[in-house]
């Protein structure tokens, strides 16, 4: 059922929803239901109910502002319909010009993180230094401790900003690695075929 947008509300959940809207419009990062509950001085369960109300009001096709569940929290964004207009006025510096090596590195960090530069270099077969620096600068990855042992290499993980840019609720939304690419057996068979073709 379509809930009409009422300007004057009496219901406590409606009032809570208004508070949440206010908090979300001020925020520049996704806010978790827990954060919102603390700020609104209410309990998490009621906040989640109110969030559903807000999400209903601010949905694609109904509003230029859309509430989305992203990077482990809730955030307002522009509706997809308004993307063209937004694109004329606003830059997207974080994802603009991400190179193929950068995406490869990002994928490795997202799946295997926390992971160090030497590990990334081992998988990709080329040094990862400049690519990692670039991703750090964009804020898509961040340092996450060091490898064990004295002088261990710094490890990296993806940031909530990565999840937000890629529209992921969390890293668990990434497709399973097993579903991607050939299996070891297939590659092995392929190698053996090439080896057999080589004259002895």
């Amino acid at each position, binding site marked *: 059922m379509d809930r009409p947008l009422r300007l004057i509300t009496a219901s406590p959940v409606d009032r809570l929803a208004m508070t949440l809207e206010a908090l979300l419009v*001020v*925020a*520049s*990062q996704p806010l978790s239901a827990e954060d919102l509950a603390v700020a609104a001085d209410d309990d998490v369960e009621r906040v989640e109910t109110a969030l559903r109300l807000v999400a209903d009001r601010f949905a694609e096709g109904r509003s230029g502002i859309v509430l*989305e569940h992203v990077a482990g929290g809730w*955030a*307002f*964004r*522009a509706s*997809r319909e*308004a*993307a*063209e207009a*937004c*694109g004329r006025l*606003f830059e*997207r510096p*974080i*994802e603009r010009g*991400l190179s*193929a090596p950068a*995406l*490869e590195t*990002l*994928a*490795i960090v*997202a*799946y295997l993180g926390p992971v160090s530069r030497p590990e990334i*270099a*081992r*998988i*990709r*077969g*080329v*040094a990862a230094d*400049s690519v990692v620096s670039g991703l750090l600068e964009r804020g898509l990855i961040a340092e996450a401790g060091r490898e064990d042992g004295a002088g261990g290499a710094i490890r990296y993980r993806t940031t909530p*900003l990565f999840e*937000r*840019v*890629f*529209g992921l609720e969390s890293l668990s939304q*990434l*497709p399973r*690695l097993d579903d*991607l*690419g*050939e*299996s*070891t057996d297939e*590659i*092995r068979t392929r*190698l*053996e075929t090439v080896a057999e073709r080589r004259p002895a």
Partner: protein
Amino acid sequence: MIVRELELDLDAFEGPFDLLLTLVLKEELDLAEVDVAGIVVAFVERLAERGELDLEACGEFLVLVAALLELKARGLFPDEEAELADLEPEEAAEELARRLAEYRRAKEAAAWLAERLEGEGNRFFRLGPAPLAPKVERRLADQEPESLAVALRLLAAEPPSVSLAHLELRFPPVSQFLERFRALLSRRRVFDLDAEVEGMSRIEQAVAFLALLELRRSDEVALEQGAPFAPIRVSRAEAVDERRDEWIARSA
């Protein structure tokens, strides 16, 4: 076709192949940054342009690129060199296949991300620094301004002057010795420095020596010393001149 002169245009390097090799061997260019496949593509393109198979050039190129690849591999996996060598051929193939599969999966994951980015390209949202944390009010105990003044007054007091007495050295003026030596030389043509300064302090002896150098510089005296640490003989400069005159007269 000369392999050395193969022109390359890579991300990490632009120029002839032999310069690349030189830079790599001098370790001025990190081989890890060099796209070896790019070199191979450049060579194959040049080969295709010529339309004939230059076996000599191909052989040379293969040797050079194989060496480059080996260097690069050793550079990238310094610790695993031995580990892989220890493996049986079967196991090595298995390990290689495992690594290829790992890289293939990373590439597939990257492709998935690129696709995702394409699909999410129409999502605009606000970005900014982390919201301000609530301000913590700092509670200080009640303070008496007078106590601050007292503390400052202690600091403002002039410190006692430090005695420099122990640093003092008495340097007699050089001029004192200048006069003394000049007077001496007006009476005697030659004197012995060591005999003159005997019984004086080290400082006085040093100043006397300085005075002597001063006299020598203005050509008032001539100095002679038979051997290192031997007594220094000081004579009136005219005396030397006279002697030289005599010598010139004699030789003439």
